[in-house]
């Protein structure tokens, strides 16, 4: 199984562990992530303004590159997934945006949202299967109590993301069970970490993320997992709680018995 792969800016730098462990685990599980050549940064946030075209172009270029290879496009960072998935939806459903983007890009064949966009977790769930993943685990994380932190970007808006139930998601808990650990349910697992407001004065992101961490700890979580480098950062820098936060791919690689150099 070969997929086109869009790593994104942060996975080449501060979020390298998310990428590296994800790639190594993919090899071990028998699927290949082919990094798109000359991909451009997705911009980190989806442009909600319908009259913004330039901010959608990098996503469409990646989607078109995957289409030309005849492959689905896999993402790993929550933000990249959110942006590319929603821009793909625009290209399928919004004639105004589709027309403007295609008039600008002048592709050989107009892009109309043909590429399937999959998050790495969706590959695990829908292509590999969590039962099969559980069979491949050689070093189960038995006894560990892990809280899934979904945040916003994978889930909402669910009409566009079609990822999981936005109010009661299960995919990360299924993942936690598959690697042999015990999922811890807590109320704030799908609440916002404060996101990009971390660059705003006032420490709002730290406070917001602190509430998430405190809630998870109070419910008995020993570790949190995330698919988003900015969630990771905000949780680690939060005020009012202390809990180790790991990328889900780090625990995946560990459970598969892979030694991934840092």
């Amino acid at each position: 199984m070969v997929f086109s792969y869009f790593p994104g800016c942060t996975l080449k730098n501060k979020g390298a562990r998310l990428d590296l462990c994800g790639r190594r685990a993919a090899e071990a599980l028998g699927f290949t992530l082919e990094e798109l050549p000359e991909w451009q940064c997705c911009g980190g946030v989806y442009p909600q303004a319908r009259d913004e075209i330039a901010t959608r172009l990098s996503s469409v270029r990646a989607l078109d590159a995957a289409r030309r290879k005849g492959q689905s496009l896999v993402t790993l960072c929550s933000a990249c997934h959110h942006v590319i998935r929603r821009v793909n939806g625009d290209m399928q459903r919004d004639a105004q945006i589709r027309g403007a983007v295609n008039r600008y890009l002048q592709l050989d064949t107009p892009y109309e949202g043909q590429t399937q966009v999959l998050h790495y977790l969706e590959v695990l769930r829908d292509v590999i299967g969590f039962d099969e993943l559980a069979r491949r685990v050689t070093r189960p994380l038995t006894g560990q109590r892990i809280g899934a932190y979904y945040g916003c970007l994978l889930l909402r808006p669910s009409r566009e993301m079609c990822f999981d139930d936005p109010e009661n998601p299960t995919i990360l808990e299924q993942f936690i069970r598959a690697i042999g650990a015990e999922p811890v349910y807590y109320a704030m697992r799908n609440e916002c970490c404060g996101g990009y407001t971390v660059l705003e004065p006032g420490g709002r992101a730290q406070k917001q993320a602190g509430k998430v961490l405190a809630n998870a700890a109070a419910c008995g979580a020993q570790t949190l997992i995330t698919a988003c480098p900015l969630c990771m950062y905000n949780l680690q820098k939060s005020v009012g709680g202390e809990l180790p936060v790991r990328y889900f791919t780090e625990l995946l690689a560990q459970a598969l018995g892979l030694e991934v150099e840092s």
Partner: protein
Amino acid sequence: MNRDLTQTVARIAGVNPRACMRCGKCTGACPAYDEMEYHPHQFVSMVETGRIDELLRSKGIYTCLSCFACIERCPRQVEPARLIEAVRVLAERKQGADHLRPQDIPARLDPDMPQQAITSALRKYRR
């Protein structure tokens, strides 16, 4: 009152503020509501009634987290976060009105901050 600006905001957002039935679910779901002088349901109402100039001057347009909880829970598909973003881009498209300038960033960085924080903030706060 500025009905023309209402039309502009609705066009940029691609949603209809008149569909709002004031149930307040958006404000109930908003993790930043207490940092906004106009809560999301009030924001929608002010767009509808043409009070855009007040919204353009409000700091709430910069405190929306874009978590999409209001969009998820809106039973009328008014999508308040889109209206907030539309007003914010209107504000930032004025020359010299960027909320964040690239030269402001180095002072706010720490060695662990992911690139995603910077790209996201620039896309939100600068035109």
